[in-house]
């Protein structure tokens, strides 16, 4: 999915990309960082410590009539103790809210993030609800049983799961969030809905493509963040410190690839 795709032709590739700030939200250990890594670098690492020093990635997404450059913000782990800074989701034009299909409580947390965004964020924000780790429940469509014990802390179960991960072919893990339940919630709340696996890549590109399609371009072009790359912007007095300090800092390099849109 991450091969460069210039099939959209010169029209699209000549277009100036529209920058879109996209944030990931959700309980710790649901797979937010893994989803970004899958989308941007097409890779997956089990039990990997979050990549230090890189919680801000970019990826271009080409559509027929536009090129969107996602500026993807990962939480840097600040969600673990409920300490995510408001600056994180400020001005976000898109949000991917992730839960873990094997953990019912993570959907509740996802719902509280939807509420928070509806209260605090930009009213035109495009939100995608994403149930991750479907590889773990490949053959099970809905909840079979529920042992009632849902761990508060969020990290333990993921660790346990990972240990048995290697041969999950015959190790079936219980799905705790039925597709229909989450999808119905998404529909009534006006969210895009997907189920994904960062592990095998299933559904990941679609999340970003569908968001790209739904982004209201006119809004972004007329909004503030367009002014970022250009020194003093006469009319509104914004300044770009990087540019003043070192002319070639932003946009100096060509990103590779793009999602297969």
């Amino acid at each position, binding site marked *: 999915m991450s091969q460069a795709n210039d099939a959209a032709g010169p029209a699209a590739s000549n277009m100036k990309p529209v920058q879109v700030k996209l944030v990931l939200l959700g309980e710790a250990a649901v797979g937010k960082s893994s989803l970004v890594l899958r989308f941007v670098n097409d890779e997956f690492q089990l039990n990997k410590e979050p990549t*230090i*020093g*890189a919680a801000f990635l970019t990826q271009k997404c080409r559509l027929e009539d536009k090129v969107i450059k996602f500026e993807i913000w990962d939480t840097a782990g600040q969600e673990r103790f409920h*300490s995510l800074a408001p600056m994180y989701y400020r001005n976000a034009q898109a949000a991917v809210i992730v839960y873990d299909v094997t953990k019912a409580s993570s959907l509740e947390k996802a719902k509280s993030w939807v509420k928070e965004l509806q*209260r605090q964020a930009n009213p035109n924000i495009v939100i995608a609800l994403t149930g991750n780790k479907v590889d773990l429940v490949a053959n099970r469509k809905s909840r079979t049983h529920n042992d009632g014990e849902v761990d508060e802390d969020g990290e333990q179960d993921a660790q346990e799961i990972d240990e048995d991960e290697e041969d999950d072919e015959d190790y079936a893990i219980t799905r705790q969030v039925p597709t229909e339940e989450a999808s119905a919630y998404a529909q009534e709340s006006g969210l895009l809905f997907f189920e994904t696996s960062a592990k095998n890549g299933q559904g990941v590109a679609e999340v970003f493509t569908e968001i790209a399609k739904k982004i209201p371009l006119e809004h972004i072009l007329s909004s503030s963040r367009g002014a970022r790359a250009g020194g*003093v912007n006469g009319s*509104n007095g*914004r*300044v770009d*410190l990087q540019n003043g300090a070192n002319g070639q800092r932003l946009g100096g390099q060509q990103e590779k690839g793009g999602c297969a849109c």
Partner: protein
Amino acid sequence: MDEQYDVVVMGTGLTECILSGLLSIEGKKVLHMDRNDYYGGESASLNLTQLFKKFRDGDAPAAALGKDRDYNVDLIPKFMMANGELVKILTHTDVTRYLEFKQIAGSYVYRDGVIAKVPATEMEAVRSPLMGLFEKRRAKKFFEFVQNYKADDPATHSGMDINTTPMDNIYKHFGLEAGTIDFIGHALALHLEDSYLNRPAKETFDRITLYMSSMARWGKSPYLYPLYGLGELPQGFARLSAIYGGTYMLDKKVDEIVYENGKVVGVRSGDEIAKCSQVICDPSYAPEKVHTTDRVIRAICLLKGPIPNTDNVDSFQLIIPQNQVKRKNDIYIAGVSASHNVCEKNHYLAIVSTVVETANPQEEIQAGLALLGPIVDKFVQVVDISEPIKDGKDDQVFISKSYDATSHFETVCDDVKDLYKRITGNDLVLKQRLTQEEEQKEMADH
């Protein structure tokens, strides 16, 4: 939190967050806590609910004020000098990538009952009512002297070594009038009071140079301001720290700093203990280890329009030099508005502040309040300016200074550097961090 850390940081003010970020980059394991459920400590920007909780015992904000989320009300009145240290720290750590900045539109000074613009261009200077024609010529000579002074070239010294010559003598040498001296010392060098006159001139030369070079950077005024308020700055550095592995806990009560043999070994919260070998905190987390040097009054005023006689600018600094109002310390007014995303549309926020000199601080800022026009609401705070009694080397508890009465972050950066040296034993050398693209490329290559 029952783990071993290298450093536990308490309080998420700007000083603490910068240090937390720098130490995390160096690979230190950092736990960063705050008793509040928001970032920023004394350098936070509050929404209406938080503001009313702090100043009005949690009364509900009047509906007429508008939406909670449209407010980011600074507690301290400070701007960034465009060519100052904070901008350097921001660009070197690349924390600028998380923030957007705007210029402060103008700098003003109160003189003989009128508000005058501090000239930002030669044209403005020539037209400025601040000096008469002959005085302008003398001032021009003075500024040329400052600009051309080279420490290693005695030919530029006119016989005056600025490391030893008091500033007062230099003013006298150029025959400057009292009003001009007030203007240069307070509106350009940003001295809060007049004790500098008797100190060597170098300090004041450096300050004038900083002002002029900051002014030259983007024009209009020497100041920059982050959209959504100053509270974005600590949040940006906290994010930097988190990206390099720092752990963040807000809304975390701290009960005790734990010592063994006079050295810190941990921090206790309830029955959890975070073990560590060093603690960094703001004065409020170690009240028995600090003393108060000054008190500052700050009146946060919500206005419905721009303040009179400032060309309707959306943001400004206004200085009332002490001599103008028969005080020892200047009164400062810092103004920002809805165009900085800090309050509702068409509203303005102005903070009137000064160092307290009497038993009735409210009375001391009247001259400032009187210049604002109608005030919709006012939140007044008198705060202690504290600093640590000891340098922290014995017990390894390093305490920052309170945010002082200056109008910018230069002293905050001095404190950061000083603390960094005491904590690590090394001078702070800012290394350029990789850019986002370079970082991403490195990651992909692995």
